[in-house]
């Protein structure tokens, strides 16, 4: 049928130009010493070897993983707990809370960065004002090696909190109330219900939250770019920021592209590990 092909032409053309060709090109360029200005030279695996042996590249992967550990568990737990609270709220208050907590999710990383840069301001920021009330000294939040990661993690959790809560809530609402009623008749307490009903029934929701959260966090760019520039001493140099800085500073793009491809493989590897971890959990298979 001709119509079908006509209807598919735009998407196929666009995907080919802007996704498939760049991907093939990425693989090609990663084997060359390539720049806009010079003849490119085939260098085999050399770019990959350089990336593989570059402690800065691995440092950025490590920063990405640390950022995941700063943001995903905290966001997960807060959202899971708060979803239980929202579940109890009915009527207008319930919808008010659901709508309000989602609002930060539509705010851009750039705007969030700007707000939090001001909150962390050394002299007049809210963060230092609050800790000074508790008797602590002012902190240089974003430029101190000990607090820089935490400083960019907090806005990340803030941005994602409402969305994660609503996903968790949808998961909770999907569990039939009869399961809990039956458990109560058998005399099950809160913990028993949590471990034998809620958590097993939420497995897919948890998997979704953890995998999307991890994949998103490891690719964080806006917050470190705006708030710390990757510093101090590269402690917040996430992989994407590393790649971007390399792109800006190095006219030979082979290395940069090789590192992006390697990052892609690492992220894929991590998410497949997580799928395994969740799906091999036979003990709670229903």
């Amino acid at each position: 049928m001709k119509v079908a092909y006509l209807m598919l032409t735009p998407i196929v053309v666009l995907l080919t130009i802007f996704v498939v060709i760049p991907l093939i090109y990425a693989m090609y360029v990663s084997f060359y010493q390539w720049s806009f200005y010079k003849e490119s030279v085939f260098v085999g695996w050399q770019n990959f070897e350089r990336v593989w042996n570059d402690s800065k590249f691995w440092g950025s992967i490590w920063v990405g993983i640390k950022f995941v550990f700063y943001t995903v568990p905290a966001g997960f737990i807060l959202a899971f707990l708060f979803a239980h609270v929202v579940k109890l709220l009915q009527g207008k208050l319930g919808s008010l809370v659901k709508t309000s907590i989602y609002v930060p999710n539509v705010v851009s990383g750039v705007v969030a960065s700007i707000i939090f840069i001001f909150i962390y301001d050394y002299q007049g920021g809210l963060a230092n004002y609050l800790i000074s009330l508790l008797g602590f000294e002012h902190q240089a939040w974003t430029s101190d090696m000990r607090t820089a990661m935490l400083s960019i993690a907090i806005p990340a959790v803030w941005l994602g909190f409402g969305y994660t809560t609503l996903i968790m809530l949808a998961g909770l609402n999907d569990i039939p109330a009869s399961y809990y009623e039956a458990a109560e008749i058998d005399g099950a307490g809160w913990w028993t219900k949590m471990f034998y009903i809620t958590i097993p029934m939420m497995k897919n929701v948890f998997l979704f939250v953890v995998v999307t959260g991890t994949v998103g966090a490891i690719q964080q760019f806006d917050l470190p770019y705006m708030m710390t520039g990757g510093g101090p001493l590269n402690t917040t140099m996430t992989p994407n920021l590393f790649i971007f800085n390399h792109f800006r500073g190095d006219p030979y793009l082979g290395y940069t592209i090789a590192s992006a491809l390697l990052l892609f493989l690492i992220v894929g590897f991590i998410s497949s590990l997580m799928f395994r971890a969740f799906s091999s959990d036979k003990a709670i298979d229903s």
Partner: protein
Amino acid sequence: MRGKLSASQVIARLIGLAVTAVSLFPLFWMAVAGFKTKTEVLGYPFRFWPTKWILDNYQVLFQDWKFARSMLITFVGAVIFTLLGLAVNSMAAYAFARLEFPLKRLLWVYVIMTMFIPSMAILIPSYIVVAKLGMLNTMAVLILPGVAAAFAVFFFRQFYLNMSNEMEEAAFMDGANRFQIYLYLFLPLSMPPFVIIGIGSFLGYWNSFIWPIMTISNEDLFQIMQLLAYFRGERSTETGVIMAGSTLAALPTILLFLFFQRYIIQGIRITGMK
């Protein structure tokens, strides 16, 4: 209020309101700070409300064209991006859901495969491609690369698969061609998925940052987030102006969400369940 509230209900309400207040606080603070003088935004000790409400920051923002123009072209870009995306992706989804043709499976795999390619892996080669096509510093470079989205095709296809066959066959018998059926029968019924995907596209475009800073260097085409970041670098002491600018830059997405919040919050049910 009917009846007495149980203790757990009261506690849930209190926690609910407290958490809501905390999560909205940064945005309210930003909005209010836009009406403060620059010494007061980061004044010590911390005060939430301004001693005197001023409009000077907004006057500064609009004293030249830059800010308003950036808001306007980002808005126009986002609208075009969203509409093109809805058209291209839903059309493809219709073909995959309702039509039979040779190579269908192959094309489906070709489209869906792209969903698993993270944008970062192809960011720099995409830049090379658009540079070679002479697209740098044009609106096209901001709009076109993201229009085709496998995720959206997948989402629309699910929706179209569930629609009934009868009307479609009846229209076909009446001599409508498949494209007309898509246009006059399927599109009008596509509101729910269109709103969800459309808002996602609009937000994605409006909030995008890394792609504009790579491909746009001409200040006349600065996208709003790019301009805001630039502002923060150039006028870092003008704290009130930065807050006012951030408020305006965040406003369209927040309003859009509030307007369509019903659809979006129901959409979370859909994506959360599968």
